């Protein structure tokens, strides 16, 4: 039983739970879209006085900020109480491809080459994290949503804009992985 919890949870169970979360949010009168929180945080900092895009009643979005806080707590609980601390079981071919980019095989959930303190305090490592975050924050708002808002919520409602956005997500991800990674790693 314990192994059952600490091992990696299977894809269909994860997919079902994510879908259930979306329907609970809909049932509670809201919708599943995580990146809106980034806009809410900007608005809550008071920049709405100068920039119209952030001038809205951000307090109406407190439910989503609570969801964000819950997600942080969930990550903490998973690590502290439900984790086996085994390396992520990715495929051999991915390990080989990443080795060519000088990224070593998983020893935990994330690569030390990107997320260790050594990486954070190197110029290149810092820039990778900063650029990655910037592109995610800028792109999700430009596209009007992220993986949750478009790939899950939007596609579930068969919306064309979401399909276009998801195709864009993959074009960007493939270009980064196959053309830009060999240049920066």
């Amino acid at each position: 039983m314990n192994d059952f919890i600490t091992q990696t949870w299977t894809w269909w169970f994860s997919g079902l739970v994510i879908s259930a979360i979306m329907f609970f949010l809909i049932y509670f009168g809201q919708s599943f879209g995580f990146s809106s929180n980034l806009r809410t945080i900007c608005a809550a900092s008071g920049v709405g006085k100068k920039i119209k895009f952030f001038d809205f009643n951000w307090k109406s979005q407190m439910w989503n900020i609570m969801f964000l806080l819950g997600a942080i707590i969930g990550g903490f609980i998973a690590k502290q109480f439900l984790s086996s601390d085994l390396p992520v079981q990715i495929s051999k071919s991915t390990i080989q491809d990443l080795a060519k980019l000088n990224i070593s095989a998983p020893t935990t959930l994330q690569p030390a080459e990107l997320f260790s303190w050594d990486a954070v305090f190197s110029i290149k490592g810092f820039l990778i994290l900063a650029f990655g975050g910037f592109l995610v924050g800028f792109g999700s708002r430009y596209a009007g949503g992220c993986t949750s808002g478009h790939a899950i919520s939007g596609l579930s409602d068969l919306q064309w804009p979401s399909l276009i956005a998801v195709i864009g997500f993959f074009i960007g991800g493939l270009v980064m992985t196959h053309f830009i990674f060999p240049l920066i790693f």
Partner: protein
Amino acid sequence: MMKLLKFLLLGIVFGIVMTKSDAVSWFRIQEMFRFQSFHMYGIIGTAVVTGVIGVALIKRFKLRDFHGNPIVFYPKEKSFIRYMLGGIIFGLGWALSGSCPGPIVVNIGYGFFAMIIVFLFAIFGTFIYGVIKNKLPH
């Protein structure tokens, strides 16, 4: 406060399941963009297939939410360029940081504090979008 508590609980479930299914791992995102495993496609695919069925049922039976209001799905505004360009920019960042906005904060809870930098710059990216929004094609 009690009204908001249910959203906190849903967030906790989200954080746990995303971590436990490796969906917050940079390695898994790489595996996905290299088409070397079904895992991430299985997660997203299952969520979307059950999502499509559920949304169709809500519309078919005109279900109401727990406030008693009809559940409505608002169509997103028609456009191509903003979804494609914004999507590509997002995708570049998704592959580079190995995280989309949800997993970024789940990782912070897990203890990968380097993700705080990703999170702060994601907020900054959203801020810059708000500043130059009117100059971008939509």
